[in-house]
């Protein structure tokens, strides 16, 4: 009963760390969590409700930061390093297991857990079989506490593949895909996506504090340069 009734909004950042991410892109990705910490420090109402987890993936997927309070003074943020290829199945499966375990634990601790948000950053196409990662994604999105899944594609990421990961893809609470515009600098695009994530986190968090549920994405008009937003129905 220690946390009875406390509202919680879990966020997962899932980052591709295949070898193609090495260099500026990975440096930009490593700056995401510190930027989120800064944003939370400036928004005390929000910081009491938001939890963050970090998973990276290449040939395999690893939980680099279990779901936590980013303002915990005892926390040290992990650094991401490149390894291997791009395996979506590993990413989705690890994410699902981690999310299921976290949500079950938080609910056992009596938190009021809101629907998790997943920000998924990749710079390339998956190397594993499409049937395999589609199935893993299907298992993730058919959970009762399925996540709001927001794919973010940079560099060589395929817009159709990434677009098919938007979840929910329809209805009043549909999510979106953020893609780097062709020719834009991929590292800057990752930084811009972090800005979108933070803006969404702040708006969703305050909306939650106001008694609403649901993930809010920033309006298209406020997107940073170099990023294009797609909705799921852009791909029919």
């Amino acid at each position, binding site marked *: *009963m*220690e*946390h*009875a*009734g*406390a*509202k*919680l909004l879990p966020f997962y950042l899932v980052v591709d760390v295949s070898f193609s991410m090495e260099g500026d892109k990975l440096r930009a990705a490593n700056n995401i969590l510190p930027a989120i910490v800064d944003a939370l420090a400036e928004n*005390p*109402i929000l*910081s*009491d*409700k938001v939890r963050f987890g970090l998973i990276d993936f290449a040939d395999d997927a690893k939980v680099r930061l279990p779901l936590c309070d980013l*303002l915990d003074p005892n926390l040290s943020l992990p650094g991401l390093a490149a390894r291997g290829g791009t395996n979506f199945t590993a990413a989705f499966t690890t994410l699902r297991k981690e999310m299921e375990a976290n949500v079950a634990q938080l*609910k056992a601790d*009596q938190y*009021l*857990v*809101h*629907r998790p948000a997943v920000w998924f950053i990749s710079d390339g196409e998956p190397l594993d079989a499409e049937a395999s990662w589609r199935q893993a994604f299907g298992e993730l999105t058919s959970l*009762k*506490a399925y996540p709001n899944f927001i794919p973010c594609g940079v560099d060589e990421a395929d817009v159709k593949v990434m677009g098919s990961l938007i979840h929910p893809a329809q209805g009043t609470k549909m999510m979106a895909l953020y893609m780097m515009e062709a020719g834009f600098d991929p590292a800057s695009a990752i930084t811009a996506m972090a800005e979108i994530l933070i803006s969404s986190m702040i708006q969703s968090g*305050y909306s939650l*504090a*106001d*008694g*609403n*549920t649901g993930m809010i994405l920033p309006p298209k008009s406020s997107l940073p340069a170099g990023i294009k937003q797609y909705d799921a129905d852009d791909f029919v």
Partner: protein
Amino acid sequence: MSGNLYLLIDLAEGPNRAAAAEDITKAFAPDIGELGWHSHTLGLYQSIPAAPGPGRSYGDAFRRFANNMRCDRAERPLLMVVTDTDPGGDWQAECEVLTASHPTVDIRVVDHRDDPAGLFRAIAADRPWEGSFTPYSVGDPGNAARKVRAVPDAAEWDRRDTVLDGVEIQGANRQALLHVRAASVRGLGHRYAGTVRQDDYAFRRTPSGRFLVAAVADGVSNSELSHKAASLITRQGCELLAGMLDTTPADRLDWPGLIEELSRRICIVAQPFMDVPDGAAVAYREVAATMAATALFGVVDLQPVDGGLPAHVFAIGDSPAWVLRDGRVWKSLHDIKNSGDGPASSITRALPGRRRDEVPQEALLRPGDVLVLMSDGIADPLQDGSGPVGRFLAESWRTPPAPLAFAGQVDFARRSHDDDRTAVAIWVP
């Protein structure tokens, strides 16, 4: 008077100081107990307490002090620095750092040969007033409670941040029939955003004196003027109920009729703020986008039945009524929300609206019982009453607290709970 005393004792260089430190703290002990002060002893040295150390660092000592202070929200803590050496070195700079981060700290320097305990007595005697206020918190108060400073709402400036009451309902010989404490407190979220408190309450005795009626309403966040709906529901709701009780027995009140009349009145109040022609019919749904609020009513019959007082409760939406029994057990008069599985939901019913399947609840209040009408700002952290918030409120409300203390308890800090809070508590003596 009372407060928090921090003793910072110089233990640098030389074993004699350790013994001196012990004497000093001993010398304080009886005074601290008598005067109601809490004390904390810190050493002025570089590492571990209770043993003399080599160097003397005010920086280290103040950081340890500040660390102790983190949870100390008393108004004016006293820091006595006991040293026989002129505080040179880093003293000046570190003092500035400390007072910048903890501006209310009263810092006094005293030589241990100059009777520090005597100086402390003098300081205490020089403050010939009693009482202190430490904000209430349950568990981790959270970042918001530590950091948020309340901002007023520029447009709705005449809406108060906090309102409270403490009254006794008396019988013919001025004997107490009921004790009432009520408070409505703006949540940290609204204080931070500079928007108004959307909760409200009201209570009144009926003209015949037979009943006490009380109401709590929680304005729906999404609609900007919901606080107006909450005020209307509570005040006019109590008026209407008092009128109805003139002619109708309490167990046969026309609750759907009350809800309909209040909804009609909300529509009238909302219309000038809506983009519709005067006198045009507006749907409840459209009005609710401008203002809407939950409604909870309680009626306590002051004429005893079977050694208790009959209470009648009716609610639309998620503001619940509870009974605190024996100062220990919380009993809900409704279902508890969000107790199922699946992700949390925030959907609640509100006025303007019509009664659907809501039915009035009845309870017989026994001596010692407390009927508490509350908004979800309290009900959410209270959960089923068995957790820390339930125990905190049960202990605090075993007997009627001072009205200002009651408001402070309603305003308890707890991580992630930043909603407006309202409670009307009715004790049966």
